[in-house]
Each structure stands twice: as C-alpha cells, then as structure tokens.
C-alpha cells in the first residue's frame, strides 16, 4: 500500500476526487458542528415567520411552521451521516467477516454463507430495506440496521474473492507451515491485501446509503418527526410547495450534494488505490 503522503499527494492531482473530498468533509463537518453553525433551533416554530423566502435572517427561508430551513438541513445531515455511517460500518464489518470466513474455511461453510448472500442480493435494494423496517418498525437506528443488512453481501463478495487469491499464495502456505493460527493468517496477511477495495467500496456505499436513507425517510419509514431528516423534510414540504418552494428545493439539493461528495471521493480513491485502473479516464 502507498504511504499516506503519496496517497494524498496523488489525490491532490485528481481535481474531481478533491472536490468529492471537500464536499464530503463539509457534510460531515455540518453534521458534527451543526448546533454551533446555526444559533436557531431546527424545531423553533414561529407563526410570524412562516413561509419566508431566503433572506439574511433565514438564508434558506422558513417552512410552514416558520422553522429555519438551513438549521433543519444542518440537523438533517446529522441523521443522514449517523445512519449511513452506521449502516456502512455494520455492513463492511459483517460482510468482510462473512467473506473472510467463507474464503478461509471453504467447503460447505463457503457454499452456505455465499448462498445466503446471493439470496439477500436477489431482493431489489429498497424492497429489502422496507421489509426489514416492516419487521423492526420505523426509526433511525432501525434504518441503519436495514441498510446495513442490505449492503452486507456486497462486502462479503468483495472480501471473499481477493481473500481466496491471497490464501493461495506461497507465503501464506509458508505461514501456515510454521504454525501460524488461522486468525493470525487472516489478520496479518489477508486483511492488508483486501483493505484497499473495501475502503473504496465503503466510500461509494456511503454515497448510496445517503440516498437510500433519504428515500426511506421520504416514505415515512426512517427517522420520525420532530427530529429533522432530509427525506422527511422534502416529503412534508410538498404540501406547501407552491407557497414555499425553497424548502423542497434546498432539502433535495442537500441530499444530492452529500451523496455526490462521497461518490466523487470514492471514485477518486478507486483511481488512486487500484493500480489497474490508474490512468483510466472515466
């Protein structure tokens, strides 16, 4: 793996990847620092301030309860980021574990685990997430669990392939011959070799997880009111679309920018970490 300076040095020469990194960092910063960036509570209602267009007082206007759109977007990012990071962390950890166990044990363990992953992959993404939420009930944590389950097979397949290759290499056989334990072989030799593709997939999955989270909360299955979430904001704004269109416009734009940021960053990272793709222009 390339040293860190080399990685960021090369990333700096990839303008699209840099733009992605900047956007993604802004979204994460907004999520973490949200309350410090806006003095207004996202829940503060004001009859006098209803349906106000963008102004210096309310940069992105107000909604039908007079709530500040910018404050609600900043708080909405907390939900987006928390749910999608939680979901992707869960699926990356669980999926890698499944893939590594399948590759290491082989035989019926491998066949059974990968069959289960095939079955999970057979469902259209949103339908499986909806089914999981139908069982667990709506809510932010359950949304993270649902997306985490949906994404697990992607990481399982991603980890298994390279793990099988590495396990067949001579130096791994040598490690086995000198009595290294299975866990040690996987942690010391296999993990470092599958780290790069998993890191890239993690970033790209964050991009789509943000969209799936927004879709689910748009459908009313995600975080429940009054907690602001971007999908729900967009959904509720539709009733007042002709009076205060800025709420619909900015809440959707906020979703797009977050997803776009992680997608561009993931793409830039893939170009840097995958030597076979280096020099490719897509």
């Amino acid at each position: 793996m390339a040293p860190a300076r080399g990685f960021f040095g090369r990333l700096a020469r990839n303008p699209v990847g840099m733009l992605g990194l900047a956007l993604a960092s802004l979204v994460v910063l907004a999520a973490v620092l949200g309350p410090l960036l806006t003095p207004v509570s996202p829940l503060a209602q004001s009859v006098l301030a209803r349906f106000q267009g963008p102004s210096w007082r309310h940069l992105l206007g107000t909604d039908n309860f007079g709530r500040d759109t910018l404050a609600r977007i900043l708080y909405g990012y907390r939900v987006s980021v928390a749910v999608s990071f939680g979901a992707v962390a869960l699926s990356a950890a669980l999926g890698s574990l499944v893939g590594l166990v399948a590759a290491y044990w082989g035989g019926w363990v491998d066949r059974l685990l990968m069959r289960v992953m095939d079955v999970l992959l057979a469902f259209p993404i949103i339908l499986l997430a909806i089914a999981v939420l139908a069982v667990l009930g709506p809510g932010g944590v359950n949304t993270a669990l649902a997306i985490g389950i949906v994404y697990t097979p992607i990481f399982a397949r991603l980890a298994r392939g390279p793990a099988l290759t590495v396990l067949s290499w001579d130096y791994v056989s040598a490690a086995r011959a000198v009595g290294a334990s299975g866990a040690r072989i996987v942690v010391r030799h296999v993990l470092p070799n599958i780290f790069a593709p998993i890191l890239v997939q993690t970033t790209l999955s964050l991009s789509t997880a943000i969209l799936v989270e927004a879709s689910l909360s748009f459908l009313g299955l995600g975080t429940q009111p009054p907690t602001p979430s971007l999908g729900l904001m967009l959904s509720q704004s539709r009733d007042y679309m002709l009076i205060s269109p800025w709420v619909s416009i900015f809440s959707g734009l906020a979703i797009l920018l977050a997803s776009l940021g992680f997608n561009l960053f993931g793409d830039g990272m893939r170009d840097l970490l995958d030597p076979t793709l280096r020099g490719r222009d897509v």
Partner: protein
Amino acid sequence: MIAYVVRRLLDLLVVLLGVSILVFLMVRFIPGDAVEIMLGANTDITPDRVAALRHGLGLDLPIHVQYWHWLTGVLHGNLGTSIWTGRPVSEEILARLPATLEITLLALLLALALSFPLGVLAARARGSVGDVVVRLLTIVGLTLPTFWVGVLMLLVFSLYLPGWPAIGYVPFTQSPLGNLARMALPTVAVSLPIVAGLTRILRSSLLEVLGSDYVRTARSKGLNERLVLYKHALRNAMIPMITVIGVQLGYLLSGVVVIEQVFAIPGVGRLIIGAINQRNYPLIQGVVLVVTAVFVVVNLLVDLAYAWIDPRVEYS
C-alpha cells in the same frame, strides 16, 4: 449452452427458495406477538378474533409445517388474505403491478434510447466540450435523488403547465394518451440515474474497443469512420451495457417504488407502504415475494441473453 441454462435455472430455484424462506420468516421475526400487533390498530379485539386470525395464519402449527403449507399455497397462487380488505393478496398485487411495471419498462427504454447517443458522442469526441459536459452530467445523474427530481417536476408543471395531468394513473387500455401523459414525468425522473449509468459504461467500453487491434485494422484497411464505429466498435461496446442492465433494473425498481408516492400512482410501492402503515403483513410478504421473484427471473433472462449474444462467455 443447454447445460449452462439448466445450471442457471437450478441456481434460480435455490435463490427463490431462499427468498421464500426469508419472506416466510419475516412475520416470525417481528418482536412481540405478530397477531396482536396486526390487530393493534383495531379497536374491537376479542380473544376469539385473535385465535381465529392465529389459526387463519396457521401460527398454531410447528414452524416447518407452517412453511410447507405457506409454500404450497404460494405455488398455487395463494398468497393469503389481505387483513383489512379481506381480498386475496394475489388479487391486490395483480391490480397494482401493471402501473409499476409500466414505469419500469418505459424508464428502461428511455434510458437505452438516451444513453446510446450520449455515450457515442462522448467517446467519439473524447476530451471535447461535449464529452466533458456528458461526463459531468453522468456523475451528477448517478447520485440524483429521483424523488426530488419528481417533486421539482411537479413544482415546475403546476406553475407553468397547470393543465398537464401530472399525478394519478389511468390504465393504458382506458385512455392511451391519458396514461402516457401521466407516466411521462415519473418515467423521466426514475430513468435519469440509469441514463447516467449506461452512458458512462458505454463511453468507457467504446473507448476501450476503439483502441483495440481489430478497430485499428478496420481503419487501416480504409473503412470510413462511421462504418468502423457503428458496424465494428459499437457491437462489442454494447456488451458491458447488457451485463449491467440486471443491476440497473434493481435500482430502477427501487426508484419506482419511491416515485409512486410523489405522483400518487397506485403501484406496488404505494401498496406496500399502505400495508406497512396498516401492519398488513400478508400483503407486505406478498409484495416483497412477487416483486423479488419478477426481478430474479428478469435478471436470469438478461444473463441468458448476454451469454447468447456474446459467444466468449464461459459457461463454467
């Protein structure tokens, strides 16, 4: 090829069996007593009704027997009874499936129709302004929240074209024009990420093919560029596009499920969301099972078509 088809069909059966087991177990995963939760929103619960529903759902039998009864029922087209309407689940789904499938199919056709010229344009004029614009659009298109696009379209149409029948659904057989007018906006909205995805793949595979030896040979023997492009390069460049159509269909279906809420289209998406709000589990199970089965079968057909078109596919 025949052995390959048979093996893929067996794979399909195993996956469908797994899907059916998961869908069956759904209700058993619900924390608490599923029957009481299902009746929860209802006021007149008597112990008799609870017992009757429990028995009606077969929940008083051992689990493998329950599964067997349920599976044989499903294979005979019996997906159970919708708790609230009392109608067969299969009937409710069949009534809603056409709208969903129509948007999905129209969006796929639209995506194919748009991504060909865009991909060819970008690859031919590599590095030009057109190429850069197409590439930027595909990047943004891939992460576009389609339900937001739908909301914006509704906004624009209600401001500038208030006469347009933007929401609701009319069957094609009843009014072809009315149907297509209402399908237009949701179709365009859900197709955009697919246009982006297919354009991107066509562009990069076309660039790869255009750099290959056989294209250089075709050029060096004096063929004109159009012939090289359309007769030689495009055919091979299309193959990676076909392989991803199955995956794209999954995204597309997901988009349609959500867009139905925006345009008030009575498809399976609205059906399942309504069913969740009513805790109507037989209906939820039915929708998940039927839509997934359709998706899996279509995916297999795409794979087989791909193997049939591209003789280089290994059947191992």
